[in-house]
């Protein structure tokens, strides 16, 4: 225990205490279920993301030509996830499908490739937040953190049924406080900056494009 710690805490404790105020009732805006998808889509499109609603069973078939049209040749996938398995099952038989690269080793073994050698990545999500047009990701050992960050294009799969109203509602309903993962992420659009004369530019560090596939049933 350092001296600095003891001294800082002692000074704070010596100050006259103030009474902790009660947290006032506050409810985030409710979004009617029928409007959720529209709001989610509109918010994402407003921040330069691309949103496609596709039948859940056919997303790999939709995605292959979409990425090919963007000139994508290599796609990073997580082989142990349901999404990775679906891609591995569907794409090899398609002549237009990009080549799959597996994120199946620690980053140290793949660093050079990940940093500069891959065109796109496909990840799953826990769901979406309609209010702000956000994707919710809890990266896992099977689907690591850098997938949604390093390649220039990030494709995210969102189950339509997993789109909720608000972050506040989600954090409470799913009791996030009970067990936070190593890293929890909200992603709302591609990487962007307005640091040069308030002019928006995309892909300054993270993906330049965010493609969201909403899986409908």
């Amino acid at each position, binding site marked *: 225990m350092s001296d600095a710690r003891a001294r800082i805490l002692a000074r704070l404790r010596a100050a006259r205490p103030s009474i902790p105020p009660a947290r006032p009732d506050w409810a985030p805006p409710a979004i009617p279920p029928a409007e959720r998808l529209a709001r989610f889509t509109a918010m994402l499109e407003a921040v330069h993301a691309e949103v496609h609603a596709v039948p859940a069973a056919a997303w790999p078939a939709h995605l292959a030509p979409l990425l090919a049209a963007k000139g994508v040749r290599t796609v990073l996938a997580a082989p142990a996830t349901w999404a990775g398995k679906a891609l591995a099952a569907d794409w090899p038989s398609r002549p237009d499908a990009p080549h799959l690269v597996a994120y199946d*080793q620690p980053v140290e073994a793949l660093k050079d490739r990940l940093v500069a050698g891959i065109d796109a990545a496909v990840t799953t999500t826990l769901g979406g937040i309609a209010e*702000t047009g956000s994707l919710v990701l809890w990266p896992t050992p099977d689907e690591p953190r850098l997938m949604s960050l390093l390649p220039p294009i990030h494709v995210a799969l969102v189950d339509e049924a997993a789109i909720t109203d608000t972050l506040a509602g989600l954090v409470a309903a799913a009791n996030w*406080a009970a067990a936070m993962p190593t*890293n929890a*992420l909200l992603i709302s659009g591609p990487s962007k900056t307005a640091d040069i004369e*308030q002019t928006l530019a995309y892909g*300054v560090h993270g993906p330049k494009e965010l493609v969201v596939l909403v899986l409908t049933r």
Partner: protein
Amino acid sequence: MDAHNSAGQTHGINSAHKPRGDFTARAPAALANPTLRANFRRAMDGLMTKRAAQFADRDAWTALRARGAAARANALARLPELLERLEDRCTANGIRVHWAETAAEANAIVLAILREAGATRVIKGKSMVSEEIGLNHHLEAHGVTAVESDLGEYIIQLAGEAPSHIVMPCIHKNKAEIAQLFAENIPGQPYTEDVDSLTAAARRALRQRFAAAEAGISGVNFAVAETGTLVLIENEGNGRLSTTLPPLHIAVTGIEKVVERLDDVPPLLALLPRSATGQAITTYVNMISGPRKPDEKDGPREVHLVLYDGGRSRVYDDAELRDTLRCIRCGACMNHCPVYARVGGHTYRFVYPGPIGKILSPQLEGLDCAGDQPFASSLCGACSEVCPVQIPLADILVRLRQEAVRPSATPAVKGGGSQAGLAADLGWAGWRLVYGHPALYALVSRLLARLGNLIPASVPMLRQWTRFRTKPRFAARTLHELAARGGFDRE
């Protein structure tokens, strides 16, 4: 020799380059610079319009703001307890927690962590606390290269300048200046003012730095005591890269950044980006609750949290001034400040400019060094009105003005009383004398009614007022005389 040992007990900015309060002397040059004024005016107008659109529903804004302010006030009311809880939870999660009282201590802690890991190449996410402690300077002096990766911070690091806004650090620079900097500093980059190509050049140059970095250093927006979670928000992805790609992550934060519960975060997140830039949310909200687990494939193997005091516990000591520590660094107060918009961030000379800087710098650095800051305000109250956590900035400005001129053996604020002067003291003593004696008051007011208009506008003390204003005219009769003539009693 370690140049920073001399910082001794000084909080905040290292004494080696500690600025002096000379706002009044610097302001005229900024006011006379039309480019600077146009840059800031345009940027501030844009930010104000975008923020207003986010909070168009007044009732929703009022309720949300009350919830956000309560989250922050609650955290402060229980600060020592929550800091201990944060430390416990972080430690349980595998995050190593360090405490620093002074800038020198914080810098030494960061350097020691880097040395132990053998790290000499560091990539940095945006952190105002690291500006506050002069971290880059300290690291460079000890053989560690620290590269800023937020585009704005990268630009001003290339230019060798300081941030001029806490959210948009290079807001004072135009395209041509940036094009020139990049052409000179990024190998293979031609001169171009095309924003997309400038951005792409920065991506290329910084990707290499990220890949080579042995450590990443970041700030923290909220530290959640309940779960031991560090919440970082940003738009570029450089914050995520700095905290994910290198094997070591060091987060540096002020002790006031703690919140009690995870459910305090959503309302604060609903306030911060909307107040700052008029965005519904930032592109990335990054919640870190520990280092890489054994089965995980990426993320840093070590995460450290440095809790920095730097004078904050002294601010905390005063129940009224304590509200200063609620700040979530959104920058809305500066965006709406008529003084900031006209003089820009560099005129303040401190890390935090604008209204929050005017109340924070004198408290952290001392009124003897930043004593003119609380006076650089028209007290219009725009800052208090927009502050998402209801900090009474204007009231605190007035309080600090009092502290600045009130001599005391135990001043509430460091350097209190240092702005007291003989002329002001005499003026107030005279005022007290006249107002305490009715006969004297009657005599003086009659004299002024008869002869006041003969006093030239250029006499000392009056001149400071009349430099920019016409001298007010005295009425020919005092109010008492008029009242008596109208048949009212003498009281």
